[in-house]
């Protein structure tokens, strides 16, 4: 019964179902409370405000991956900001809440700036210091915000004076923010943000501006927390430092509760806020200090959840759901290498593919200290040709592709791509020229789906921002549509289509390597530098890579330099093999020729005398 429901839900589109259920539920709840009276409305408004507040943590911790113990302080900044705007400057209520949001966003960005520079431990200490700074300077000081115990009035607007009508206002804010957050999370900016959290280096390599992405997250998070604070001030009618939820202890409690609910899903804050408000309402008998119970939940609860399920309660629910789904649809979902279909023409979306480039390396010499890693190496790759590099560790294969991709500077020599001097260009400029290099470790964004992983690669080519993404303006929609088309075409080339919706951390290692290959193809490269694509693969997976690489080469026409220890793979895929030893080219020719060369075999197994490796420096 549950299973069939889950399956049907997935068919309709889970988000739509959940959204509809949430909206319907909230509507019924609102109807009931507004009818039943002030007390219930007041409490439900609290719930809405705390959900909003915890949502700001989803943005900053769940998406940007930054630990923030400052939520309570931001809440306070928003509350005091709105109250001051209302009582001192007599701004309209909604404007005051908006201003509170802006002020808090600014504070959040200022505090957030050092995170771009600091390791997490130091950042935590610093933020803890900032809490006390904000507390002492803003909340309790005489010369600001009424100071001390004096309350700053925050009158509600005339059109939402009663508790039920104020509740409706809070609920409207919540629904709006929710819709916005969900939308922009799924679009370009949100994707880039999750990518920077999962793997900052890889995201940067794909052209995501990590600094900018994080600052945007800080601002959005601050804005949400600030508006929550503003609404809170209105709910209470005024704030003082005695309002009691702005201190560092509450910052920690909020953090703990939200982690408990789960910060990787928007359901987390709902769970956390529900928990908090319900606990406060429960008749507590002997527990006269309800806060204690809260602390027991936020503390040991988080520890327990974190030891077992780092994604909190919402993560546990998701895992449970996935298990049920997997059990019912096991037959269709089983991971198996898809049959390779030989294709004659390129898929339509690949029609504008740039094709292969001609690479010409001349007299490359590369020295580190006393070691000569490359000694006068020549390498030419014709457009569309696949050249395999064979040799032992230290033969210079990786150094050579590092020189081409720009990660290592050659001491002497030239590298030309279709006549353009590559050595004069920065690595990212070479990437724009169409040089794409793989890494031995699969660099993926583990919490994102395969589709999203590949969409991140389209980030630099897309331009819509936070607002148009959050509001789903036509521009954002068109861009998303075009990007998806390209991703689907690339997934088709490397046979990844069946895995489009799977999360990267649920894939087998072999499939992950394919996702990595697809991510490289997303950039429409003209020269692929593959560094040990078969490393770590099982025998069957390594064999399956042979036809796949051939297909990539024939469909896209890209030129490929393949570095690999797996002789069989290199022999099967390459048009030509270059055998290397001790930084020099030993033999060049067709696979059959090179493999028949006795000196090659000897070199590959390191049978030569170590003395030849002269001048090695002690490390």
């Amino acid at each position: 019964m549950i299973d069939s429901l889950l399956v049907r839900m997935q068919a309709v589109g889970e988000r739509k179902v959940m959204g509809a259920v949430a909206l319907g539920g909230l509507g019924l709840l609102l109807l009931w409370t507004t009818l039943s009276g002030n007390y219930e409305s007041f409490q439900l408004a609290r719930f809405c405000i705390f959900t909003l507040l915890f949502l700001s943590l989803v943005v900053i911790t769940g998406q940007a991956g930054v630990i923030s113990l400052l939520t309570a302080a931001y809440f306070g900044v928003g509350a005091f900001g709105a109250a001051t705007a209302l009582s001192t400057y007599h701004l309209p209520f909604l404007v005051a809440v908006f201003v509170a949001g802006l002020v808090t966003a600014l504070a959040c960005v200022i505090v957030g700036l050092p995170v771009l520079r600091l390791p997490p431990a130091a950042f935590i200490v610093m933020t803890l210091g900032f809490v006390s700074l904000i507390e002492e300077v803003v909340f309790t000081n005489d010369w600001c915000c009424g100071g001390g115990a004096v309350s700053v009035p925050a009158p509600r607007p005339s059109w939402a004076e009663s508790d039920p009508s104020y509740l409706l206002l809070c609920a409207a804010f919540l629904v709006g923010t929710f819709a916005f957050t969900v939308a922009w999370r799924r679009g370009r900016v949100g994707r880039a943000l999750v990518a920077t959290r999962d793997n900052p280096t890889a995201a940067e390599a794909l052209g995501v501006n990590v600094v900018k992405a994080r600052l945007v997250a800080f601002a959005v998070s601050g804005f949400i927390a600030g508006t929550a604070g503003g609404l809170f001030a209105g709910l209470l009618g005024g704030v003082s430092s005695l309002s009691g939820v702005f201190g560092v202890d509450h910052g920690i409690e909020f953090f703990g509760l939200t982690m408990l609910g789960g910060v990787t899903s928007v359901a987390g804050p709902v769970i956390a806020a529900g928990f908090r408000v319900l606990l406060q309402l429960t008749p507590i008998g002997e527990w006269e200090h309800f806060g204690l119970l809260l602390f027991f939940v936020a503390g040991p609860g988080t520890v327990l959840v974190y030891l077992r399920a780092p994604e909190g309660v919402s993560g546990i629910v998701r895992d449970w759901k996935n298990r049920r789904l997997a059990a019912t649809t096991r037959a269709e979902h089983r991971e198996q290498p898809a049959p390779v279909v030989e294709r004659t023409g390129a898929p339509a979306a690949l029609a504008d593919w740039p094709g292969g480039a001609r690479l010409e390396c001349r007299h490359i010499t590369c020295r580190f200290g006393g070691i000569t890693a490359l000694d006068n190496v020549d390498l030419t790759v014709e457009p569309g040709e696949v050249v395999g590099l064979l040799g032992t560790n230290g033969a210079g294969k990786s150094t050579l592709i590092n020189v081409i991709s720009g990660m290592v500077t050659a001491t002497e020599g030239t590298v030309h791509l279709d006549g353009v001097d590559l050595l004069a260009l920065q690595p990212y400029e070479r990437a724009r020229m169409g040089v794409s290099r793989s890494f031995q470790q699969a660099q993926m964004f583990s919490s994102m789906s395969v589709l999203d992983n590949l969409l991140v690669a389209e980030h630099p080519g897309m331009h819509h921002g936070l607002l148009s993404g959050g509001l789903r303006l036509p521009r954002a929609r068109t861009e998303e549509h075009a990007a998806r088309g390209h991703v689907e075409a690339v997934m088709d080339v490397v046979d990844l289509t069946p895995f489009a919706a799977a999360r990267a951390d649920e894939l087998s290692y072999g499939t992950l390597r394919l996702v990595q290959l697809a991510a490289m193809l997303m950039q429409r490269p003209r020269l692929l530098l593959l560094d040990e694509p078969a490393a770590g693969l099982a025998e069957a997976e390594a064999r399956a890579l042979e036809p796949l690489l051939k297909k990539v080469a024939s469909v896209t026409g890209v030129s490929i330099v393949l570095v690999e220890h797996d002789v069989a793979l290199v022999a099967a895929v390459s048009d030509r093999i270059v055998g290397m030893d001790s930084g020099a080219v030993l033999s060049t020719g067709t696979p059959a020729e090179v493999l028949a060369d006795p000196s090659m075999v000897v070199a590959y197994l390191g049978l030569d005398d170590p003395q030849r490796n002269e001048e090695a420096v002690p490390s």
Partner: protein
Amino acid sequence: MSAPLFEAQDIAASYGKLRVLDGVTVRVDAGESVALLGTNGAGKSTFLRCVTGVQPMAGGRVLIDGEDVTSEGPQALLARGVVHIPGGHCTFPALSVGESLRVAMWPFRKDTARVAAAEERVFARFPILAERRTQSAGSLSGGQQQMLALARALVHDPRLLIIDELSLGLAPTVIEQLVEVVVDLHASGVALLVVEQRLATAARFTDRAYFLERGKVQFEGATSELHNRGDLVRAVFLGGTAS
């Protein structure tokens, strides 16, 4: 027939989803010298770390003198005379040479006579270490650091020395010195299990070799045979293409 000094049976290990070792069996008899060969990423170092119990393994057993010591940790192995020198940066950079040796002698640190004797023996073998006694290990040259690593192993009077990449990143003359020490040790009856990249180096002081590829033993036999018979090397080398 008595049980071999050291036997690792069907060792399996994974890093997350990545299967690194898939049922590797290696045996070393008393006084024997064995090489573990294979390309980068074949799983050699992982194998050593698994059998000495500093890395959890997914399956398999480790026997010393026929006694099961699986997952008992390095202390149990040290007590039975099996010492593992890890590859790469295995020194304590901020400790002095003397302090590093003292750490190595932790299991018998209270036995002052034994400590003094071990120290004397080690300094006699490596006079350079005696000179640099108060110098920090991180400031030693690469070769001296490896000597210190050997010295830290020798204080235990090992019966079996497990060495991971003795020669990595060192100059040929330095390698020569270290190989001499190891050959000398082997001559005095210490069994060896050595990971080496280069067959030529391994052939100089090992009797038998295991060739590891894709987490499995692809070949087992005499090192000299592997070194001298081109056709055999070819067979091992092209093993992957056979399929």
